C-alpha cells in the first residue's frame, strides 16, 4: 500500500471505502479516487498495454492527456481510468490485452519493433492484393480496443441549454480570478473545469510554499459567496461553435451554452521528455506525481529522480520529498543554475542537482514492469547526450518536468491566431476574435501573482465587451520572464524506444524516418507517422513532434505552424450526441377515428395517413380492392386534410396566382375552381392543386401534401419580391378536409345537408359554402378519383363530427385510404407530383401542356418552357397496360424500361385495376416509344423482362362523364351498365 497519511485538501473521503475489481482481483479505494489513483494506491503499477507494441504502461499525465490506462466496465468501452471516478462494484478490465496485463501474449510485438517502423502498414500490406483480406482481419484483431457488449442497457442522455454573460473555461488561479472579477461586477458567469474540483495547479503544485493552499481556500469561499457564478466541475468544454456557443460535457449529459463572452483559462499540458524507456511504469510527469500526492494522498514512487528544466520541477521535488519519497537527484537540462525559493529549499533538503545533464535511458527491472535506475549523461552544447559520461542513479520512478504545451484547442477553434514565443518556448494567442479572451498560462503567463492579475484583466475586457461597468485592474510589472519549457527535451539513443507519442507508440527515430521519406511538413508528418491521431489527440505528443521536425528541417517552430485543432477537445460519448430525434409527425384531426376503424398508417411527407383500413381475414390487396370498388359503385370517404390549404386575399390576390401558376385565373368565376400547376424558374413542375375563387379578391387553394410548407413559404417570398398588395394565410392545420366520392355521393350528402346539390346549382368544378351536419363548410366539386365527388373543407375541430355523420348517413359510405386513392386516380390517369414526376420533369413531358397559358404576360417558369418548346423533349409520361389475360409477376414502381439493352425509362405508377381487371400504369419513357399501341420491355426483380403496351391515359372514363354527371343521368347509366 502506498496511501499516505492525510494530506491537507485531499479529494478522497477516507470514511467511505469503495470495493471494486480489476482483472478479476478485488481492490479497495476511497470515494473521490479515480480508478488509477485507487490502483496505484494498491500497488498496481501496470495499468495498460500500449497500442502497437503492447508495452506495459502506468501513470503518465493523470490528467486525460494520455490513454495509457483505458479500461472497460462491460458497459463503457474506453473509460479513461486516470480521470474516471471510482464507483462501488466496478468490474474493470484493461482493453488492449491478450490475456492479462502481466502476461500479455502480444508483448512479443515489442521485440519486433524494429521490423515495424512507421509507414510499415502502407508499404507492407497492399500486395499481393489477394492477401489483403487476411492482413485486414489480423490488423483489425490487433488494433481493436475493447469488446462491445450488445446487451448493455440503453438509456437516454439529456441535452440542456444554458446562457451566460461570461463563460470561464478552466478554474485554475487565473480562471477563478476572472470568474470573480466578472461575477462581482454583476455578470452572470459560468465557471467550468474538467476536474472533480476547481483549483487547477493550486490543488497540487505546492512545494514548501503555503500560499497556493491558502489562496485556493480563500478563492473557493469567495466564489461560493458570489451569487452570479455558477460552477460546473467535472465538466469540459468540448468544442467552440459559431457566435460563442459551446458544448459542455460531463459524465451524464451535454449542455449547450450560449455565452456573450468567453475567457479561455485552460492552462497548459505538461509534456514528457523523450529518452529510452521513458514509457516504463514509474516514469511520469511531475504534475502527475503531484496530483497523486495532493489530491489522492498516494505516494507515486519510493525513490525518485527528478528530470527538469524549470522551477516547477524543483517544486515537484519538494512535493515528493514531503511525501516521503527519497529524491536521489535532480537532473537539470539547463546550464544555468535555478534561482528560486524552490531551488533554495531543495538545497536545504540536501537534494543533489546534476546540471546540464539528461536522462539517457531508464533501466528496466528484471520483471520488465518497472524502473530500477536511470543513466544520466552530460549534455553537449547542441543538446545531444555525451554518452561517454554515464552515471547510473538507482530509483523506482522518474518525475519529468521539462516543459508545457498550451491547452489552446478552443482558441484555435474560435479562430485565434497564434505566435510562437521563443522566450518562453510556447505558442501564445496573438489576435483573438471579438468577445473571446485568454488568461493565465495558456496566455503565456506563469508567475502565480501575474496569473491572478491576468485573470482580472481578462474579466475587465469581457465586461467592457459586454458594455458593463468595469475598472482597469491594477497590473503590477510582471517579474522577469523565465522559460518554463526546454527547447529540446529529446534525447537520442542508438537503441530507440524513446517515446514521443504514447498512444501510437512513436519514437524519435520514426520522425526522422518520415522526414527522410519526404513527409516533412507538420500536416504530412502527422498523417504519415499518425502522431497526435490517437485517442489523446496529440495532447502529450504534438509539441515534441514539432520540436523534432523543426530541428530536422533547421527551421523555427513558429515557421512550421501547428496542425488544425478541431472539436472535440476530449472524446464525447456517442450517446451524448445522439440525444433525441426531433422529427415532427403531423396527424389530421381524424387520426383517432382512423385508428378505431382499423386503419394501417403510412408516412406521407411529415403526415401520417391511413394507407388502407384493415378488414378481418382479408389481405391488404383485398381490402384496397374493396375500397376501390366501393368508390366506383357507391360512395367512399377519404381524409384529405393533409393537403396544403391556403387562402389569399387583397387587390393583387389574382395577380399573385396568375404569376405563380401556369393557368389563368382572371376569368375564373366566383364560385368555381380550376386545376393549377406550379413550376420553378427552370420550368420544372413543383406542385399542383385546386384553386377556388371565393370572391373577386379572395381565393382558397390546395397544395400537395408534401408541398404545403414550401409553397406557402415561396408565395410569401413572391409577395415580398413583387411587392404585391395581398395577404396570405396558411390554413393547413386549421382546416380539415375530406372527400366524399362515388356515384351515390350526392344523394348521401343530401341526407346531412340542405345545400342545393343538383348539377345546375352546384356544377362540376363548383365551389360553394354550405352547412353540412350543422357545420359551415367549403365544398369543392372536384374529381381526383374520377367519380362524382365533393371535397369538404371545414374547421379542424369539427371534422370528426362531420366524418362520423357522413359514415352514419348511409351504410354504403366506405372509408378509403391513400392506396385505394392511388389506384383510383391511376385508372383516371391523374398524375401525382413527385411520384410520376421528378426533379427534372416539365409540363411538356408530363402531358400537362394543356395547363400552360403561354399567352399570359408572365408566370414563373414561362420563359424556360418557351425555350424548351423549341427543342425535342427527352422523356414522355405515358400510360401502359398489360393484357387482361396476363397473370405473371407485376412490375413495381421504379422498375426500368429497357430498349436494346439500355435504360430507356422507368415505371412511375403501377397497380392492378380492380375496375378494368388488368395491370395499368404510368411510365416515363423515351418519346419515340410513346405512340399508343407500341410495345416496350420492363425489367422486373430478378431480371425477368415483361412486355407492356403503351396506351393513351385515362384508362377509365376517358371523357370524364362520371364526375360531371347529374344524379338522374348517372343512376340511369349505373342501372343499365353495371360497372365491373
Amino acid at each position, binding site marked *: 500500500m502506498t496511501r499516505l497519511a492525510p494530506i491537507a485538501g485531499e479529494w478522497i473521503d477516507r470514511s467511505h471505502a469503495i470495493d471494486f475489481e480489476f482483472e478479476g482481483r478485488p481492490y479497495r479505494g476511497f470515494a473521490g479516487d479515480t480508478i488509477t489513483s485507487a490502483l496505484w494506491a494498491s500497488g498496481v503499477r501496470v495499468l495498460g498495454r500500449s497500442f502497437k507494441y503492447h508495452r506495459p504502461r502506468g501513470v503518465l499525465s493523470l490528467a486525460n492527456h494520455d490513454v495509457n490506462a483505458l479500461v472497460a466496465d462491460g458497459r463503457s468501452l474506453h473509460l479513461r481510468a486516470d480521470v474516471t471516478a471510482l464507483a462501488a462494484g466496478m468490474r474493470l478490465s484493461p482493453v488492449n490485452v491478450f490475456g492479462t496485463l502481466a502476461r500479455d501474449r502480444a508483448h512479443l510485438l515489442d521485440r519486433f519493433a524494429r521490423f515495424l517502423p512507421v509507414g510499415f502498414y502502407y508499404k507492407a500490406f497492399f500486395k499481393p492484393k489477394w492477401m489483403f483480406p487476411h492482413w485486414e482481419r489480423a490488423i483489425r484483431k490487433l488494433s481493436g480496443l475493447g469488446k462491445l457488449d450488445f446487451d448493455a442497457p440503453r438509456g437516454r442522455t439529456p441535452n440542456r441549454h444554458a446562457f451566460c454573460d461570461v463563460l470561464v473555461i478552466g478554474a485554475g488561479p487565473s480562471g477563478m480570478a476572472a470568474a470573480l472579477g466578472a461575477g462581482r461586477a454583476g455578470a452572470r458567469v459560468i465557471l467550468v473545469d474538467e476536474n472533480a474540483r476547481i483549483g487547477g495547479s493550486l490543488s497540487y503544485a505546492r512545494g514548501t510554499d503555503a500560499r497556493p493552499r491558502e489562496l485556493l481556500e480563500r478563492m473557493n469561499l469567495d466564489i461560493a459567496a458570489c451569487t452570479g457564478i455558477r460552477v460546473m466541475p467535472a465538466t469540459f468544454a468540448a468544442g467552440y*461553435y*459559431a*457566435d460563442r456557443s459551446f458544448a459542455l460535457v460531463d459524465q451524464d449529459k451535454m449542455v449547450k451554452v450560449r455565452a456573450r463572452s468567453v475567457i479561455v483559462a485552460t492552462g497548459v499540458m505538461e509534456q514528457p521528455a523523450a529518452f529510452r524507456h521513458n514509457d516504463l511504469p514509474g516514469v511520469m510527469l511531475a504534475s502527475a506525481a503531484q496530483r497523486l500526492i495532493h489530491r489522492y494522498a498516494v505516494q507515486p514512487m519510493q525513490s525518485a529522480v527528478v528530470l527538469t528544466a524549470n522551477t516547477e520541477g524543483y517544486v515537484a521535488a519538494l512535493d515528493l520529498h514531503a511525501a516521503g519519497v527519497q529524491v536521489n537527484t535532480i537532473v537539470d537540462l539547463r546550464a544555468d543554475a535555478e534561482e528560486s525559493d524552490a531551488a533554495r529549499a531543495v538545497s536545504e533538503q540536501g537534494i543533489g542537482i546534476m546540471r546540464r545533464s539528461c536522462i539517457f535511458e531508464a533501466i528496466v527491472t528484471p520483471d520488465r514492469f518497472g524502473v530500477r535506475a536511470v543513466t544520466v549523461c552530460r549534455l553537449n552544447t547542441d543538446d545531444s547526450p555525451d554518452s561517454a559520461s554515464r552515471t547510473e542513479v538507482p530509483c523506482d520512478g522518474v518525475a519529468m518536468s521539462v516543459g508545457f504545451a498550451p491547452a489552446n484547442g478552443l482558441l484555435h477553434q474560435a479562430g485565434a491566431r497564434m505566435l510562437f514565443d521563443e522566450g518562453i518556448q510556447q505558442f501564445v494567442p496573438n489576435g483573438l476574435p471579438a468577445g473571446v479572451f485568454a488568461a493565465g498560462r495558456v496566455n503565456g503567463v506563469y508567475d502565480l501573482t501575474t496569473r491572478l492579475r491576468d485573470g482580472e484583466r481578462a474579466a475587465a475586457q469581457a465586461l467592457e465587451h459586454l458594455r458593463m461597468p468595469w475598472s482597469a485592474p491594477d497590473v503590477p510589472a510582471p517579474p522577469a520572464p523565465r522559460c518554463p519549457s526546454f527547447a529540446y527535451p529529446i534525447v537520442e539513443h542508438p537503441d530507440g524506444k524513446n517515446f514521443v507519442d504514447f498512444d501510437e507508440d512513436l519514437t524519435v527515430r520514426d520522425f526522422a524516418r518520415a522526414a527522410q521519406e519526404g513527409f516533412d511538413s507538420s500536416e504530412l508528418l502527422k498523417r504519415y507517422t499518425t502522431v497526435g491521431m490517437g485517442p489523446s489527440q496529440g495532447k502529450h505528443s504534438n509539441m515534441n513532434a514539432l520540436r523534432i521536425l523543426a530541428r530536422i528541417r533547421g527551421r523555427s517552430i513558429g515557421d512550421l505552424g501547428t496542425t488544425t485543432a478541431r472539436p472535440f477537445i476530449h472524446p464525447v460519448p456517442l450517446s451524448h450526441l445522439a440525444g433525441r430525434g426531433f422529427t415532427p409527425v403531423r396527424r389530421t384531426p381524424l387520426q383517432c377515428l382512423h385508428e378505431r376503424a382499423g386503419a394501417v398508417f403510412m408516412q406521407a411527407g411529415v403526415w401520417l395517413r391511413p394507407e388502407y383500413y384493415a378488414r378481418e381475414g382479408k389481405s391488404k390487396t383485398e381490402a384496397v380492392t374493396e375500397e376501390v370498388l366501393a368508390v366506383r359503385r357507391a360512395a367512399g370517404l377519404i381524409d384529405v386534410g393533409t393537403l396544403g390549404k391556403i387562402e389569399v386575399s387583397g387587390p393583387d390576390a389574382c395577380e399573385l396566382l396568375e404569376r405563380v401558376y401556369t393557368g389563368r385565373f382572371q376569368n375564373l368565376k366566383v364560385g368555381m375552381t380550376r386545376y393549377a400547376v406550379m413550376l420553378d424558374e*427552370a420550368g420544372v413542375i413543383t406542385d399542383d392543386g385546386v384553386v377556388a375563387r371565393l370572391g373577386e379578391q379572395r381565393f382558397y387553394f390546395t397544395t400537395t401534401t408534401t408541398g404545403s410548407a414550401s409553397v406557402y413559404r415561396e408565395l*410569401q417570398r413572391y409577395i*415580398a*419580391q413583387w411587392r404585391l398588395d395581398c395577404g396570405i394565410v396558411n390554413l393547413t392545420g386549421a382546416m380539415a378536409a375530406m372527400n366524399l366520392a362515388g356515384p351515390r355521393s350526392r344523394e348521401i350528402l343530401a341526407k346531412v345537408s340542405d345545400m342545393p346539390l343538383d348539377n345546375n346549382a352546384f356544377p362540376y368544378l363548383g365551389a360553394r359554402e354550405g352547412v353540412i351536419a350543422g357545420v359551415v363548410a367549403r365544398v369543392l366539386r372536384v374529381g381526383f378519383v374520377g367519380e362524382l365527388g365533393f371535397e369538404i373543407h371545414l374547421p379542424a375541430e369539427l371534422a370528426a363530427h362531420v366524418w362520423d355523420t357522413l359514415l352514419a348517413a348511409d351504410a354504403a359510405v366506405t372509408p378509403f385510404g391513400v392506396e385505394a386513392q392511388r389506384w383510383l386516380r391511376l385508372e383516371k390517369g391523374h398524375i401525382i407530383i413527385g411520384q410520376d414526376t421528378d426533379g427534372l420533369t416539365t409540363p411538356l413531358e408530363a402531358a400537362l401542356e394543356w395547363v400552360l397559358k403561354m399567352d399570359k404576360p408572365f408566370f414563373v417558369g414561362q420563359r424556360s418552357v418557351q425555350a424548351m418548346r423549341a427543342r425535342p423533349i427527352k422523356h414522355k409520361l405515358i400510360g401502359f397496360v398489360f393484357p387482361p389475360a396476363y397473370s405473371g409477376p407485376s412490375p413495381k414502381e421504379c422498375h426500368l424500361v429497357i430498349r436494346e439493352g439500355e435504360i430507356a425509362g422507368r415505371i412511375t405508377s403501377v397497380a392492378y385495376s380492380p375496375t378494368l381487371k388488368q395491370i395499368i400504369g404510368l411510365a416515363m419513357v423515351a418519346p419515340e416509344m410513346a405512340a399508343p399501341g407500341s410495345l416496350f420491355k420492363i425489367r422486373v426483380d430478378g431480371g425477368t423482362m415483361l412486355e407492356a403496351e403503351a396506351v393513351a391515359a385515362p384508362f377509365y372514363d376517358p371523357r370524364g362523364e362520371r364526375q360531371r354527371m347529374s344524379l338522374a343521368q348517372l343512376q340511369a347509366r349505373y342501372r343499365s351498365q353495371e360497372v365491373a
Partner: protein
Amino acid sequence: MKLLPCPINGLRPISEFIYGGEYREMPNPDEASDTQWADYVFNRASLPGIKKEWWYHAPSGTWFIAERDVQADVVQRTYLLSEAPAA
C-alpha cells in the same frame, strides 16, 4: 450555433431560419436570349465577397435580405426587401 438578426424579431438562432439562395435580379424574360435566360436560371457565382441573400425566419414567416461576407461567414446587415437601404 450561429445567430442571425431578423429585421422583425431581432437576434435569433440559425435553426429558426431557412436559407433562400442568393438574391438575384431577373432579366426581362421578353428580351433575354435563351442563353442569357439559361445563365440566370442555372448559373451561380460562388465567388468570395459580400452577397445579398434571401433568408426566411420560419416561426414568423418573414423573408428578408442578409448581406453576408460568404468567405468570413459574417452577416453585415439584414433588412426587409421593401426597406432596402440606399447602397
